[in-house]
């Protein structure tokens, strides 16, 4: 039997039709799967593959408690509660629940917010804790959602606020360590690219999955000792209350390392409530960002320069007439009556301007503050003690200040005569303190730092790189000036210090420049001193107090704050007294 299809039969036609359809299908499939392959793969990936950012944790900031790191800035997950007013039904229950659980974090006008029916997103409460969020979730309120976010928390409250800075609502770091060390604190976000299901659960199928873990920011340990910082802040508050001054700053440094143990400014603020601060100057760390004319504290620098250059000794004498002429100007002492032939030690004790203008003259030809004298002073002040230079400390907002060089028209003899006793130059407290450390530690200048190191995953402190000091003055010079400041302090403040210790210091009372003119109704009081044993000073403290239209003096208003902190430090550092 012949089963071959006959030509022109219906079966042949059907076969031809089917073949045609199949051909169309094949061509179409070829077009879709081969020609349009990339296009459809892109569409599929867009639909199926999700790119999820794994946020890096911002590094925490620690202070020291003795040698133990303690957290100053931490991260905490908080929640924003929002409502979709088109979905909510039992508004009364929602309002009661949110008010009861979120408390002060709830918006005051909840009823109004829930009645905005043309909106699908209304925030009902912000920054509530996980426990609060869980309580609200357990109520199973319809139309209520939660948004998770991380915020900075400050277990120690306002402690060291200006050193820390804060993170604003847009996530930008402002001021302090937060801003200056942002790149080290911020870390690097990770990436999870994966095929997901409808609930965005990542699935392992697919060839283009990426799982790059986040790299958390570094946990930074500061040299700030929280006990010292706390006492300094309290002493400053008490001192301002006593004196009536409205502003004050204190910096405490370890002169043997350049590490800052405390930095405090008043008025201050709480970083967790930064949005309630009305005067933005409270954010500034005046110790590094407010250059000023330091006044008589600088006499220690002039003395060190004179001794180091061999121009004077502490016992060398000059004739004090309470006035001294420089070019066409007469410079007078603030304290009158110590006239006659006196030693430079005596001039330092009584803070006599004439003595230090005389040193400036002796750096030249003895009669005039020559170019050579000015070059020498500039070299020491700016080049060696680094006044008027950025110190590079790890907090934001540092300003360099100004030291007019002798090459400038303004760098004349009158300018440098004023600089010899602390006027005519703009420097920061940190610069003065760092330079002073080198005077009382044997002549080693350490770059000031607030960075002790970082904390590893196991909680161990990894110390930062130690920087070699420079040597601005000879050890013999440093030792002589240290002894001079010890004598100067004991001349007027003998019974204030705890007996058995070796302390010293210098008062400073600065006139205030306003619109380029010295005001006669305002002065800034400072005290710059140190303490420890005779063998080694363990701390340097600089105190500054000021206030609008207030006459504040170093010896009267700043020194008591120094004494309070200094005596406490002697105990805290467990320094053994002599005798």
């Amino acid at each position, binding site marked *: 039997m012949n089963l071959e299809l006959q030509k022109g039969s219906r079966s042949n036609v059907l076969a031809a039709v089917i073949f045609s359809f199949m051909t169309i299908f094949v061509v179409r499939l070829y077009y879709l799967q081969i020609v349009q392959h990339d296009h459809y793969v892109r569409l599929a990936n867009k639909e199926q593959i999700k790119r999820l950012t794994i946020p890096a944790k911002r590094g925490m900031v620690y202070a020291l408690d003795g040698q133990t790191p*303690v957290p100053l800035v931490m991260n905490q997950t908080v929640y924003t509660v929002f409502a979709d007013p088109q979905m909510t039904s039992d508004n009364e229950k929602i309002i009661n629940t949110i008010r009861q659980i979120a408390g002060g974090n709830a918006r005051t006008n909840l009823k109004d917010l829930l009645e905005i029916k043309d909106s699908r997103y209304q925030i009902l409460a912000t920054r509530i804790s996980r426990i609060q969020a869980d309580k609200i979730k357990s109520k199973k309120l319809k139309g209520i959602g939660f948004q998770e976010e991380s915020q900075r928390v400050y277990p120690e409250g306002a402690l060291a606020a200006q050193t820390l800075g804060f993170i604003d609502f847009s996530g930008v770091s402002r001021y302090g360590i937060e801003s200056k060390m942002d790149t080290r604190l911020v870390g690097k976000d990770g990436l999870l690219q994966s095929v997901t299901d409808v609930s965005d659960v990542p699935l392992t199928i697919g060839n283009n999955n990426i799982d790059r873990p986040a790299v958390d920011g570094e946990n930074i340990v500061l040299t700030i000792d929280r*006990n010292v910082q706390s006492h300094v802040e309290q002493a400053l508050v008490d001192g301002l209350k006593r004196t009536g001054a409205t502003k004050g700053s204190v910096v405490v440094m370890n002169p043997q390392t350049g590490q800052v143990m405390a930095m405090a400014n008043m008025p201050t603020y709480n970083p967790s409530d930064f949005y309630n601060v009305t005067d933005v100057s409270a954010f500034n760390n005046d110790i590094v960002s407010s250059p000023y004319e330091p006044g008589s504290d600088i006499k220690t620098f002039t003395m060190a320069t004179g001794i180091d250059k061999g121009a004077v000794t502490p016992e060398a004498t000059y004739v004090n007439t309470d006035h001294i002429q420089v070019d066409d100007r007469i410079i007078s002492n603030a304290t009158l009556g110590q006239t006659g032939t006196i030693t430079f030690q005596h001039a330092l004790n009584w803070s006599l301007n004439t003595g230090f203008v005389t040193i400036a003259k002796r750096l030249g030809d003895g009669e005039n503050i020559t170019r050579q004298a000015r070059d020498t002073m500039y070299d020491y002040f700016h080049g060696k003690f680094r006044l008027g230079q950025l110190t590079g400390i790890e907090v934001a907002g540092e300003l360099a200040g100004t030291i007019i060089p002798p090459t400038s028209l303004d760098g004349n003899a009158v300018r440098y005569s004023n600089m010899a006793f602390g006027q005519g130059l703009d420097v920061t407290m940190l610069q003065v303190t760092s330079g002073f450390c080198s005077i009382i530690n044997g002549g080693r200048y350490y770059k000031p730092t607030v960075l002790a190191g970082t904390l590893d995953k196991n909680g161990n402190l990894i110390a930062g790189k130690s920087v070699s000091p420079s040597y601005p003055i000879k050890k013999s010079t440093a030792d002589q000036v240290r002894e001079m400041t010890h004598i100067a302090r004991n001349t007027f403040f003998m019974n204030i210090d705890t007996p058995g210790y070796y302390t010293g210091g210098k008062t400073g009372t600065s006139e205030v420049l306003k619109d380029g003119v010295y005001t006669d109704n305002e002065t800034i009081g400072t005290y710059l001193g140190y303490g420890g044993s005779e063998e080694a000073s363990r701390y340097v403290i600089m105190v500054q107090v000021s206030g609008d239209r207030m006459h504040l003096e170093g010896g009267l208003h700043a020194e008591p704050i120094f004494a309070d902190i200094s005596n406490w430090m002697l105990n805290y550092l467990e320094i*053994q007294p002599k005798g």
Partner: protein
Amino acid sequence: MSFQRTTTFNSRRQKNWSRNQNTVVFISSIKLGPVAHTVLVALMITVLGLIYLTQATRAMSYDYATQKIDSQIAELNTQKNDLQVENARLTALEAVKSSSVASTMTKPATTEYVQQ
């Protein structure tokens, strides 16, 4: 008594007469037709497909399990973090200063130092 051989052995000795070669070959008496072959192939493909599906589904179920564990880890990390914050708050200077222990402490009247 007689028996009937059910297996046929064909001598291959004549065809491949050499050392170490089988001299007999087994030929089953059961024959499979083309339909049976097709059915068997279809069954094998079906079984293989089912195996693939079960494995793929199992891999997916691992993904869900992983996701669940990840969520638990994240939740526990959040709780741990909250506890660390709480611990830091409780051991903060202000909390220590206002603690009942601190309030009962007194300053020593005198201090003696060990000679070093």
